[in-house]
């Protein structure tokens, strides 16, 4: 019997309605056609980062939205406390790789789905791996990992010599995060819209306890736990190994010592749950919020892949502590973002044989685009870093001052040379790229 072409199967009838019919709210480039469903079924490649609370949901949501080629990456193994929300895992899976179990489950449940698991840290994969996807979607609980993948997608961007972004090098990054009943989802078009780094101030600072408080004037049960964790554990080293929050013996030891310390100071409220929370820095989590945020992200992936509806621009927050509240807004891209604006800014040089370093510095101070105050310049020549001029450190200033009166050619700077410029006007350094209007031949 001849098999019905996948995209003609009745199971996709829901998707076909929004993909094959015109509508008033579609992306301007949307052209309704059966080809779109074929594209998501057979061509589009999606990467899910994280196979935890958000990752399990994302995998199910995307597979149900027609995506068949999905990779999922997570280094963690399954723990009992995951089972209240990471619904692709069962009791028998405890101790096994999250990515592996999640992939197996979806491949078995959804016909034709090809999920490829990667059980490793995201840092183990290189540019070529990440470049292979149409869209990357993140369900992480770590800000550091988020920043890393954000840096990765930005580094995949190509700019031409005039600093114009090559649109085909953009891999959209859809990112979700939750904490208790709160969450957020965002769409990042690297180089075009605000990136993770542009909005770093949105992440709440981690709660820390000053050492003098926990050592001298503990008041809260948390102070007692923290003291045992950072002072007593390293001193007594009870098991001869580093503290592992997942080892029940370790947490039990901390619990007992913290209780002792609390009793000594008449502090109430040291419970095993509290100890675990402090030791492992536990963030409360519930199935419903993860379901909502992942599904918002999956909907955005679907919109980006099909253009059947304009995507979120670019940030939404969710909170269902009091009724159900959502808010969408456009987070602003920072011009001086460390990551997404860190493209070399071209500087045209008429005659590098005549232009002195001092002239270049004056240019950076006077030019409307740079408007710097007191820039310091470093570069790399033949693989070695070279300090050209640093005004802010007395000793180095004295040592590099003679460079100011040297020409760019004398300093060994070539056409296309990238120079890292630090200045008080920007928290991060700016990279400029020298562009000589005369050729090397003429220079020689």
């Amino acid at each position, binding site marked *: 019997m001849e098999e019905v072409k996948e995209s003609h199967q009745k199971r996709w009838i829901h998707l076909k309605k929004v993909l094959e019919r015109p509508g008033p709210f579609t992306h301007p480039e949307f052209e309704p056609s059966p080809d779109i469903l074929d594209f998501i079924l057979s061509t589009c490649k999606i990467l899910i980062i994280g196979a935890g609370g958000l990752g399990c949901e994302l995998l199910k949501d995307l597979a149900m939205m027609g995506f068949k080629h999905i990779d999922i990456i997570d280094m963690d193994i399954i723990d009992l406390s995951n089972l209240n929300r990471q619904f692709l895992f069962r009791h028998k899976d405890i101790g096994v790789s999250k990515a592996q179990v999640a992939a197996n489950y979806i491949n078995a449940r959804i016909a034709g789905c090809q999920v490829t698991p990667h059980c490793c840290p995201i840092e183990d994969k290189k540019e070529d791996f990440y470049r292979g996807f149409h869209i990357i979607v993140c369900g992480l609980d770590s800000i550091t990992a988020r920043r890393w993948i954000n840096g990765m997608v930005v580094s995949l961007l190509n700019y031409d010599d005039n600093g114009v972004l090559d649109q085909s090098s953009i891999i959209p990054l859809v990112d979700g995060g939750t904490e208790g009943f709160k969450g957020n*989802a965002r769409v990042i078009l690297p180089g075009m819209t605000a990136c993770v780094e542009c909005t770093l101030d949105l992440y709440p600072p981690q709660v820390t306890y000053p050492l003098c408080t926990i050592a001298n004037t503990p008041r809260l049960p948390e102070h007692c736990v923290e003291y045992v964790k950072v002072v007593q554990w390293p001193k007594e080293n009870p098991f001869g190994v580093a503290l592992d929050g997942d080892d029940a013996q370790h947490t039990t030891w901390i619990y007992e010592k913290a209780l002792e310390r609390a009793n000594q100071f008449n502090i109430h409220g040291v419970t095993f749950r509290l100890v675990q929370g402090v030791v492992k820095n536990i963030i409360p989590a519930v199935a419903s919020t993860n379901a909502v945020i992942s599904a918002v992200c999956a909907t955005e992936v679907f919109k980006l892949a099909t253009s059947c509806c304009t995507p979120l621009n670019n940030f939404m927050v969710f909170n269902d502590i009091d009724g159900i509240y959502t808010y969408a807004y456009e987070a602003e891209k920072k011009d001086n973002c460390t990551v997404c604006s860190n493209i070399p800014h071209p500087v045209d040089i008429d005659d590098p044989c005549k232009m002195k370093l001092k002239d270049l510095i004056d240019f950076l101070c006077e030019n409307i685009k740079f408007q710097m105050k007191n820039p310091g310049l470093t570069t790399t020549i033949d693989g070695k870093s070279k300090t050209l001029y640093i005004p802010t450190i007395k000793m180095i200033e004295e040592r590099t001052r003679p460079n100011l009166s040297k020409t760019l050619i004398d300093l060994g700077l070539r056409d296309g040379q990238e120079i890292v410029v630090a200045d008080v006007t920007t928290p991060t350094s700016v990279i400029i790229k020298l562009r000589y209007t005369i050729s090397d031949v003429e220079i020689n």
Partner: protein
Amino acid sequence: MSSPAPKSPEQNEKSKKYDRQLRLWGDHGQKLLENSKVCLINATALGTEILKSLILPGIGSFTIVDGEKVSEEDIGSNFFLENDSVGLPRAHVATQCLLELNPDVRGDYIDESAEHIISNTQNFFKNFDVVIATAVHEKVLLPLSKHLWECDVPLVVCHSIGFLGYIRLQIKEHTVIEAHPDSESPDLRLDKPWTALKGYLDSINIEQLDQKEKSHVPPLAILHYYLTKYKNSHNGALPSKRAEKEVLKQMIRDSGHSEEGNNRFILEENFEQALHYANSCVTPRPIPDHVKAILDDDSCTNLTQNSSSFWIMSAALRELVQAEGELPVKGTLPDMAADTLSYVTLQNIYRKRAEHHAESVYRRAQQIARNLGLPQDWVTESEVKYFCKHASELHVIRGSCIANEYQKSNLDLSSYLEDPDCLIFYYIILRGLERFISEYNVYPGQLDDQVEPDLLKLKGIIGKLLNEWGYSHVLRDERVHEVCRYGGAELHSVSAILGGCAAQEVIKIITHQYKPLNNTFIYDAINTTSATFCL
């Protein structure tokens, strides 16, 4: 070395599994959840997504009511139907798939339509704590809504169509004890310290402390000291206006400066915190309006044998407020710069006061229950403790019946209709869509060649509806067009968004923690926005 024998409290399997959520609603919330019975009408994608987020956190049991057979289209949108289940009863297949999620949860199903059950099995729905209905249209919705309103069983109605979602809560009366507000000023009562607190704070003379003692004295002692001074020079009046508080704050600033080296002045952390508390914690804490309303509510002043423990406790609270003029002290102190001994001493003073208040409310509540002839354990001590601790967070929500809303000829939407971008227009379109289905038995745009004609019909129906309500507004065509484009399609990811939202509302209803939606929620996945309307 050998490890010490674990002396810590044994953590059982359940508290480990549910650890991340117990940090949100506590063991007492979990207990209510584990004893709850939930009914789902129609195992659509949206329906099973809702159940998923209820089964994972561990409700007691669920029952699916659905007379449909699994279709190929169902499998395309519903994760909890297996590929090879086409033609089998949908209720049965979904129940089996969902039960896999959590062995602690029991589940069963009835392979009958809700319509059939309403007319044949009276009292069937009475046994549930919450009934959830998806893909239920007017013909069934209205009798169901009426029936559940009469039996006082909460009903959650949800729709997912294309990029649009709708959640409606129908609940006669819902009481919330722990609302868990996002931010709250600390409950310090420095405006009117009770004897024990005043005694302790009076014993600290800030100006006689040496530099070292001064840097460790609790901010509350600093604030109390200068507040007393301020009152003494202002005929006993508390600072209430900004300028008056500024006077108090200047007194604290002057005292907090310490000399160091070359005349450099530094304000110690505890003085900084005293300044911070001076902004919000020196005026009497008014009883919030929503709590006042509870104390004056008929259900509180006219108790009967049918009164719930919430209302008995409210009546007891009312007596306490009448006697003391204030709500019970919360009994918790925020962390503040202070030495251990004085902080712990202060904390004990606050805790004892809270215990005293809770005991007093408990005694009164027991007396009230006795007078009503109710059993001894009608109100428990632990319940009263939560009630008193969260006395300023108490809420009562009184909802409305959906059948009423549908039969109203004067539905008041005027305040929303002014804004052309308001999502109320999607509500109106969904109401039109319901009527369309009643008339034609299909979704508008369900058939590819009927999108245009259905669009005209739907516009006509919506115009008529608005007319019936007395409005002459014209809807933006594009929105009606968009809904016809969907042709009743259910997009999995949109159902998953709504499923999560609706499930959490059900958990709020069951646990009486966190404030539920009141009462209609529209989600617009086109623009990733939402709105709530009280209808």
